[in-house]
């Protein structure tokens, strides 16, 4: 498994991905910095807020494109057969590739988070906010949450890549999954609060959402930026159950990916 992981890392680093990270990171810093200029009272909080949204967006993009580049394209071009010619299981190939993408995402997360950290420190100039931001452990915990979020998206995209015979389908479905999973929390919250008293919405979507929440993970549960932005500590349950949700779902997806890839015929 590890040779596949290392080869994925090498391929990822040799590709234009690193350059892409730097360009996207620079853009991210610029956008987050500009957004802070709109804030009259909390420029650093806004920088973290917009910056973390940018990091999440970037990591999800990386997850989807790296899986497409390093797995789906190999399958599509049949170059995967060279790798499978070695005496290794198909499961080792899939899990190794996934581990490689996870490591690449971690590198990207650290790079982007570092850039954002500097932009937060410099946002607002000499203006001191009434309530400061937390740039220590709470900041890095939020980054870990965003990374785990991207890992879940990568696992889903990988599963789609193992069964898809249509080019770019993994990318399209992976992106849709990322948006759907992240929106789920807001939708459930809206319905739980009575949908602004709209009985029609409650009747139409309430039962449907009850079913969907057992199929789609609520990725907003991995968004822990509030501690860094406002100093509101997270409960242990928030972090532990959020991580458990992600680990469980990734395990299911990887199992499905291994099963479908093991049964897949290339000719």
């Amino acid at each position, binding site marked *: 498994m590890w040779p596949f992981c290392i080869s994925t890392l090498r391929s990822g680093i040799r590709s234009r991905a690193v350059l892409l990270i730097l360009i996207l990171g620079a853009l991210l810093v610029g956008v987050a910095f500009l957004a802070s200029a709109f804030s009259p009272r909390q420029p650093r*909080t806004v920088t973290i807020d917009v910056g973390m949204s940018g990091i999440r967006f970037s990591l999800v993009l990386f997850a989807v494109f790296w899986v497409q580049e390093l797995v789906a394209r190999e399958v599509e071009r049949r170059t995967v057969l060279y790798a499978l010619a070695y005496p290794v299981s198909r499961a080792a190939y899939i899990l190794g590739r996934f581990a490689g993408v996870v490591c690449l995402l971690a590198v990207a997360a650290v790079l982007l988070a570092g850039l954002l950290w500097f932009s937060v420190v410099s946002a607002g100039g000499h203006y001191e906010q009434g309530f400061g931001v937390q740039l220590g452990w709470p900041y890095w915990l939020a980054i870990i949450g965003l990374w785990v979020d991207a890992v879940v998206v990568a696992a889903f995209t990988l599963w789609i890549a193992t069964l898809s015979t249509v080019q770019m389908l993994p990318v399209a479905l992976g992106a849709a999954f990322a948006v759907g999973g992240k929106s789920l929390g*807001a939708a459930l919250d809206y319905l739980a609060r009575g949908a602004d008293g709209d009985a029609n919405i409650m009747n139409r979507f309430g039962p449907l959402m009850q079913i969907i929440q057992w199929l789609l993970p609520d990725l907003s549960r991995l968004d822990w930026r509030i501690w860094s932005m406002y100093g*509101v500590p997270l409960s242990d349950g928030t972090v532990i159950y959020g991580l458990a949700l992600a680990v469980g779902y990734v395990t299911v997806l990887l199992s499905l990916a291994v099963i479908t890839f093991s049964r897949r015929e290339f000719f």
Partner: protein
Amino acid sequence: MRSAWRWPWQAIVALMMGCAVFVFAQSRLPGIRRAQVNAEIAIALPVFVQVAMAGGDRYLAASWAAIRALVTETSKMGPEDFRVLGVVQRDASWLNPAHEDNYYIAAAILPWEGQVEPAQVILRRATLARFYDYQPAFYYAFNLMHFTGDYLAASEWLRQAAPKLPKPDERLLLENFAARWLDRTQDVELAARIVDAMAAQAKRKDFADYLRVRAQRLRDLGVLRRAAIVYSDRHGKPLVELSELVSAGLVAKLPVDPFGFGFGIDPNGVPVLLNRPQK
């Protein structure tokens, strides 16, 4: 041997037709009035749509809505625009109730333009989310006092805000305001009991004594008001001078205001507290 090149007549005909349609449309358009576009805030999208447009990221959706509110030029906005602004900011507070800019702008703009209800919703949510910040509760209290005239609730919210202030002197100042706002309530007995309760909770003895004096002042006002009601029932006319209560035997003597401002009578003959020295 290479075949002779031939003109792609079909493509050339399509090109010419396209040019003709474009030139025709372009020549006609200047005479057609543009649909009115309001440069300021005009649309409030449903919360679901806002979240979906932000890639499912509710914090980003909230930031985007707050920036929309920040960049609108209020001098160009009409009443309907302010209603939409209220909806946009209320949605932003639903997405991220702790957003500082959002509640700040809401407090600064919305109630002054008739949007008291959304402003209060935003401030109430911010008070809950930002449990360490005195300002949302302070603005909420001010709006209750200034826009809805609910002095009793305003005083209660001000008392909620006071302990969140960092300096003891500032806390004391806010608690003082809370006590003074109670002077303006119609139910002076209830106000007096609340001020007494505040005195019981005050840590500093001098401030507790001050609050007890305020409570006594309210009780004195209550005595005068009850006597004024009896007076107007008995004589069939409202009270004109407070001294009439003494001459009518309804009070033994007029109470002395410990703050020196004294008591007065409003145009309806109801005794009130004076809050500045009489000339």
